[in-house]
């Protein structure tokens, strides 16, 4: 066990810190779930990319920095430490990108990854359908082959970033006789094709964070199929693994929230119950545990290990920690916990309320926590289906 950073890693951290200090916008950007905010976030991503920091763990030829996963964790720590903007293209860079890296052809990698890294092309995810939520194998949208095109019909829903994205990835049934997990194909779809209708949906926070997407005889070239035809399920499982695990939710995010929570509790220490201090302490410990566990995973991956069903452990842990931290913050804020930041009496309520509303989605997206618990019980503990 070696818990010291090497000289190179320290230099990497210092470089990241310096660049972020000079470049992170002084005032917070608007939410990327608004038209204006989406524009601001694309500009930020372009700047990040120009500085070479958009996708640090990717190879240089695909718009990355050629760093390893440990350096990526260091970058994430510095990114959250600097209070830098959220990543509008997270569906692309953290979920689809690594999947293309694993399943894409050389042509697909060259075509999609650089523009993903720069967020010139922002991605929406098309997992769910009206009748395929937790039961994702029940997908009904079809993509039947016609010459060198697929013809897409059907509907996706809860497509995150769908309102302002350029592309969507998702699974479509390419074999009309198939059932459940079989006969599905993972397809990449430009959202500006004829026959596509995107209808934004307002989320709990009132913003258009996701959308319904309708496909009416949409023609997509076959070279936009990722992985083999009919083998979309295994491609999607890789993507879901990244979504539940360390790529989408790096520990720095929760350490930053835990730090703000501890600072809030310190500030209000005289007015809070001792039990609240205890709970805040437990949250901070949990954020550290998540950080340590991620470093353990990354150490293993760097030594050629693989991630499997344990991504489900991660997903439960970070989503419930995030929610608990926000609940506690609102409890500490007391009567002001229900106020919008613009309320005259808001004081230091900050973004806790919006954060709470967002945290409520954590146990739902990327596969509900109930599904994750089933996966743990069946695949890790060996319980019968």
């Amino acid at each position: 066990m070696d818990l010291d950073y090497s000289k190179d890693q320290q230099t990497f951290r210092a470089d990241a810190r310096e660049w972020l200090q000079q470049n992170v916008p002084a005032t917070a950007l608007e939410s990327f779930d608004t038209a204006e905010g989406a524009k601001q976030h694309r500009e930020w991503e372009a700047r990040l990319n120009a500085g070479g920091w958009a996708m640090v763990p990717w190879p240089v030829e695909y718009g990355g920095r050629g760093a390893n996963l440990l350096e990526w964790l260091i970058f994430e720590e510095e990114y959250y430490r600097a209070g830098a903007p959220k990543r509008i293209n997270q569906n692309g860079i953290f979920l689809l990108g690594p999947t293309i890296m694993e399943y894409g052809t050389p042509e697909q990698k060259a075509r999609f990854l650089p523009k993903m890294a720069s967020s010139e092309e922002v991605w929406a995810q098309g997992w769910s359908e009206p009748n395929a939520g937790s039961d994702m194998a029940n997908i009904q949208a079809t993509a039947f082959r016609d010459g060198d095109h697929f013809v897409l019909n059907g509907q996706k829903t809860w497509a995150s970033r769908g309102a302002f994205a350029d592309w969507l990835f998702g699974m479509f049934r390419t074999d009309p006789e198939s059932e459940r997990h079989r006969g599905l194909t993972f397809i990449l779809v430009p959202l500006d094709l004829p026959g596509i209708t995107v209808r934004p949906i307002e989320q709990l926070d009132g913003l258009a964070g996701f959308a319904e997407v309708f496909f009416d005889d949409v023609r997509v070239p076959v070279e936009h199929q990722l992985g083999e035809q009919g083998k979309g399920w295994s491609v999607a499982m890789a993507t879901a693994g990244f979504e539940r695990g360390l790529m989408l939710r790096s520990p720095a995010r929760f350490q930053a929230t835990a730090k703000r929570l501890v600072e809030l509790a310190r500030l209000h220490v005289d007015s809070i119950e001792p039990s609240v201090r205890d709970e805040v302490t437990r949250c901070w410990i949990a954020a550290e545990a998540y950080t340590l566990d991620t470093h353990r995973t990354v150490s293993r991956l760097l030594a050629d290990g693989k991630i499997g069903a344990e991504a489900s452990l991660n997903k439960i842990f970070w989503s419930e920690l995030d929610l608990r931290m926000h609940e506690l913050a609102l409890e500490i804020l007391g009567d002001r916990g229900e106020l919008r930041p613009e309320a005259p009496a808001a004081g230091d309520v900050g973004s806790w309320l919006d954060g709470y509303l967002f945290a409520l989605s954590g146990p739902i997206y990327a596969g509900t926590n109930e599904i994750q618990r089933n996966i743990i019980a069946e695949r890790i503990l060996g319980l019968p289906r």
Partner: protein
Amino acid sequence: MDFRFDEDQELLQNTVREFLQTEVTPGSVRTLWETETGRSPELWKQLAEIGLPGLLVPEQHDGMGMGEEEMVLLIEEAGRAALAEPVIATAAVAVPLLAELGGALANEWLPKIAAGEAVVAVGHPVSPFVEDAHVADLLLLPDGTGALHAVTRDAADVTAQPSNDPSRRIATVEFDASESTRAAHGDEASRLLAAALDRGALACAAGALGVCDRLIGLAAEYAGERKQFGKPIGSFQAVKHMLANVKVKLEYARPLVQRAAHSVANDASARDVHVSMAKLAACEAATSGAKVALQAHGAIGYTWEQDLHLWMRRAWSFDHAWGRSPFHLGRVREALFTGALPIGPGTTFRGDA
């Protein structure tokens, strides 16, 4: 940066696991429960042959000369096997304490411990009870002034305090403190006692991991076999989810224990906080594992005859020994609320060296 146990360490863990699987069974644990001491000198001698009591004994005193990283892996196995021998008292706590005291005490007792010929118990102000005092050849005990004394058992008054776990033998100990018994005082004694507490708590955390893993395993096995309503009860989501919850607790306690071991071995500045985080998380995982495993077993788990309670009792014992949860939570809370600890992204591995 490489946050993994190395191959040699894992090999050592597997060796001890295999040894304990053969030599320590629920039946043998129960047999010891019925004896006066609850301890087996023969088993202790066997454990010495595979190097367990002498793991931390320096090589010049005939030991293995290893550190806490190896120790936590082996104590996890002791927990998995529900081993009752005084591994924590003697191997994890007394040995490094004697090594730090040095001199005649170290010269006399360390080789005997490594050879499996002596048991040494350690008292601490964190608890009124001393574990394994009844079989200890030597007792290292604090007095009311914070000084540390070395007393042989015949010079002490040991009163057994039967506990909830027949494997956990604890006692109150009285002795006459004098110049001749005093081994350390003042700052040195405080430093040694603080280190002993952290080592004891770390060892309990490691043991709790093994106990929790075993409890989950027993419950999953039972739930996979026991049928009601025509199917295994483990196919019901209510049963699956409660076991999955314990698995989550266990897997996130594990890296805390791993890091605390590194911090103790390297005397890191935040050693005490790291140990408390580990003890708290691992014991919570184990005690919730005890509850959930019992629930999964239903009435059969509530019997003395079923072996489940061997591990349930170990979970409760580890929770009680070397500082209960409120103590450890309090140590972390104080460090957080006084601002003594740097927190936030990028601070996790600072000051570990």
